[in-house]
């Protein structure tokens, strides 16, 4: 672990410290925090850290800005490889 920082997003290795610092300095919504730090964009599709990122934005930008919509569920719901979507089978 990077000197024992609490990791929130395991797939992208985003720590709590990064998230809090970004959320406070840019006062961003969940979606913007996800875009800035990549937390929630990993292979597991945000299963582990989606709720945590939402709660971090709630805490850090306490007047939870009106346009603050929680993080959504982006397709594909299950990760798939490109080869499934039409790899040329060389017989």
């Amino acid at each position, binding site marked *: 672990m990077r000197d024992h920082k609490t990791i929130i997003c*395991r797939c992208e290795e985003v720590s709590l410290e990064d998230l809090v610092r970004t959320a406070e300095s840019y006062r961003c919504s969940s979606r913007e925090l996800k875009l800035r730090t990549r937390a929630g964009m*990993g292979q597991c599709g945000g299963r*582990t850290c989606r709720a945590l990122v939402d709660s971090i934005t709630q805490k850090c930008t306490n007047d939870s800005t009106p346009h603050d919509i929680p993080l959504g569920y982006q397709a594909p719901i299950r990760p798939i490889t490109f080869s499934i979507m039409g790899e040329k089978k060389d017989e």
Partner: protein
Amino acid sequence: MSKGRIIDHPILGRLDEREEVHFTFDENKLIGYEGETIAAALLANGERVLRCHEETGKLRGIYCNIGHCMECRVNVGNQKSVRACLTVIQEGMEVKSGRKLPTPFKKGETQ
């Protein structure tokens, strides 16, 4: 207690005899039993590291073991990103662990 498997469980009783399955993990030959998942067979053989993080290279292995977290993804034959905890081992299966990928465009890294 054989290497890595509970043969005689106080409640579940004795592990029944199963066919041996030969497969390779990163080119070394391992033996698992029929009906075991790749993750279980590797764990029984003492292999805990299934891949390393594509960007930072940190070692990763089984985490949820029920197919949600994608931490146990390995390459089987030419198929990439296969979940080891859900895939049952077959005879002669070639499992390769995930490697750190180059990041040529990251600042400070010139390749």
